[in-house]
């Protein structure tokens, strides 16, 4: 299965995770799956990096974690956005869009 793989830019993963959680609490595996589905597999997210990012954001209290039961009744660690996380998502979303627009405009006009 060949696919174009792109390395993630710094900070991109955070905003993706926050976005994934903005739809409701998810466990790590669901977050990984959501990102993969939404990006059509274009972005390569190593699971290890995903978890490190999750835990860092938990420590920064952008997200909170709680143990719960998964759909097939397994104990799973769920993450949910905190108020601070919501604010961070808003900021990062704006920053990312203007960044992308800036890069795109350079590449297209050049």
């Amino acid at each position, binding site marked *: 299965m060949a696919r174009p793989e792109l390395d993630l830019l710094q900070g991109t993963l955070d905003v993706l995770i926050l976005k994934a959680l903005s739809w409701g609490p998810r466990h*790590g595996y669901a977050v990984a799956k959501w990102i993969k589905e939404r990006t059509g597999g274009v972005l390569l997210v*190593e699971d290890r990096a995903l978890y490190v990012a999750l835990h860092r954001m938990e420590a920064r209290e952008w997200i909170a974690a*709680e143990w*719960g039961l998964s759909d097939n009744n397994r104990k799973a660690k769920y993450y949910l956005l905190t108020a601070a996380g919501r604010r961070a998502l808003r900021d990062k979303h704006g920053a990312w869009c203007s960044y992308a627009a800036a890069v795109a405009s350079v590449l297209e006009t050049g």
Partner: protein
Amino acid sequence: MSLLPGIRRLFRLAVRQRAVARDVDEELAFHLNAKIEELVGQGIPRSQAERIARREFGDLGLARKELVAIGQRGDARRWRRERWQNLGQDVLFAFRLMRRQPGFAAVVLLTLGIGIGASATMVGITRRALTQSVPFRDPDRLLHLWMTRDEDPLERSEASYPDLVDWQTQSRGFIGIEGYNPTNLTAELGGVPIRIRGTVVTPRFFDLLGVRPALGTGFPPDSTGAGASAVIVTHGFWTRHLGSDPSAAGSSLTLDGAVYTVTAVLPASFQFSPAGDGEVWLLVDYAARRMSERFNHWLRPIARLREGVSREAAEADLALVVRRLAVAYPETNQGRGVMAVSLRDEVVGKVRPILLTLLAAVTVMLLIACANVASLYLARALARRQELAIRVALGASRPRVARQFVVEGLLLALIGGVAGAMLARLGTTLLVRAIPEGIRAGLPTLATGAMDWGTVAVAMGIALIVGVAFGLLPAVAVPFGAPAGVLRGGPRSGGDRSGNRFRDALVVGEIALTLVLLVGAGLLTRSLVTLLRTDAGFAAERVMTMRIALAGPEYERGEAQQRFFETLLQRVGSLPGVESVGAASNLPLNGGGTNTFRAEGAPEPDPARRPDAVVRGVAGAYFDAMGIRIVEGRVFGVSERSGVPAIVVNQTLARQLFGSGSATGRRLRFYAFPDSAWEIVGVVGDVKTGTLDAPVPATVYFSHLQAAENRMSLAVRTVGRPERMTAAIRQEVAALGPELPVYAVSTMKEQIAGSPAVFFRRFPLVLLAALALGALVLAIVGVYGVIAYALTQRTREFGVRLALGAAPGSLVRLLIRRGVFLGLAGTAIGLAVAMLGARLLDAILYGIAPIDPLTLAGTSALMLGVTVAASGLAAWRATRIDPAGAMRAE
């Protein structure tokens, strides 16, 4: 999946170090599992699926390490933050509780404040009295020496100057020996004569103590010659009378009619309490006759131990010197010994038992206060069980709840400590003010009765300990760990047995401690009553006294002194409102010098065994005015102007010398007046010349007409209240000698009350009685509380019993029985402790033994009666239970 766990998370206030690693492992395992399940669901064989999952994950070991590290760091940070937040919450919560129950807070603060205040006061005073009473360099090496007599090992007397010099030169254990002698002087300050206290000292006295003047140079080195007119003044004298003049050194001062030069001002911290509150310090007068008289014991020696020499060794060495002197001068020194006491013991020895007694009493008081507060606290904790159970159910951990209590206890105790410190400040001032001036002068460091930081520190230290103890108490004694039962059953349905037992124990302790205080107060009361009932030998009612000292050239001759007092007595005697008037060189209870003598006709006694007697010069109708009984013969009259040398003796002397035979007509010879024999013309009743609690010594009265006195105290028996005559008597003195100072103005009643024997018992008695009363009130409240609480706990049960036909009285009896049990237990323990502790009082008891059956029985009965009364009062409410209402209540 619900959000409930998340909400619960918010309530989990105490964060413990979770097994972070386990969480990480579980999370990763779940992830890999989910991935594998998905792959298997897509038809990939399990072993291959596992490989793919691992590969896609990345370095699993590294991930684990990273995640654990992040988790631990986060936990630590959160824990630190939450701890501070919790503390803030706890403090806020405690404040809110205090505001919600202001009555409880007020009672606790007041009880703790008084308890802490009282103990801090006593600790502060005791600490200062016992440790700072000898404010000199190397105080442990300073000794006070006393001469003793082999005859009477308890008698301590001064030394003669020739003896002192021999001790100085011949003993080897001391760096130096110096002497002092307190005296009274008339100072002329701005033309006004005032009577001041002074001390005569040997030249190197201040060097021995290690005191350097704040101003000036001290005594001039050539002290045998011109330096004799040098005077050193205290800092107090300098500020009061010399206007704090920095150039005071070198100015002149008139004392007893002679001009002295102020050579130095002592530092403000100087206080040599064995000499009282002497304000001026003079050198011994080398020209005086007593400097060469070996029989004249007037100097009190102090000494400083040589480095490395023990007190015992130095004392033994000095004893050798004293024995050599006895051999060399048998006439004066035979039968004399020496005793070395540490200067500290000399200063505080007398007050130490009193201070320790009071210290023990306030400690007991503090314990009672604590027991009461603890009891209140427990009761409230029991009442709060439902609230606590809810908190535990919502996820609060036991230590977290316990900490809430500790914070609350600390907060209350610290506020109580501040209140206590303020009370201690007030208490110290009041206590010091309550001490008569004469006694205060002997207690240095008290005279400056200011609050010190040591007292504050003590108060806060006590508060801290008390606070933590209170906080832990409910946590230990109240079983709030089982939420379900408490929530279902409400706060009253059993389960708090241990709390009840705790309160019972506290009340028993309170009763016991209160009884201890009561016994102490009872013993002191009995001592004081016995003391005041002892026949002092004079009638103190309606007697005004004041002292007059004749000084100056016009009064130098004896005739002038006699003329002055005779005229004065005549003028005062003719004042309206005066019944009779006399004068004496020393009033009763004021001590005075002694003379050795022998009875004429009796064989010459061994010099060591010469009898001695307290001597008093008297004038006018002294015996009549003072109400002293005439037993035999007559007292002095005008015939003494010309007649044979006459004396009056007291019964003790008559009995000692002549047994049951008549004393009148017998003659005594005094070694101080070797030329004449004195005929006993009368015998009077025994009068307490020294202190009320000592036996009366042999006493001899001279007429001032035959042995002139330059200082006497008037004794004026009045018709009405003695104080009213003061102004009129003063006027008569001023009319005769306007320059003469009149001092020590007081009634005989005041003199008795202010005398050390009475004061040293009344002072602790008043304090102890106040403490005992306070303790009694606290104990009553404690007993009442326990019984009343028991009643509320059993209201429903009692309702059932009443409905079934039980007599209300039987229920009251049931409750009272519990009170009686508590009272008996407390009294038994209290009696045991009191009997052990009464020994502490031994030194200040008078006329009774420390274990006094009457006191013990009386106080026990009082304590038991009060306990029963308090429980009866509380139990009475059982009769008013409405059975129907009580059964419906829960």
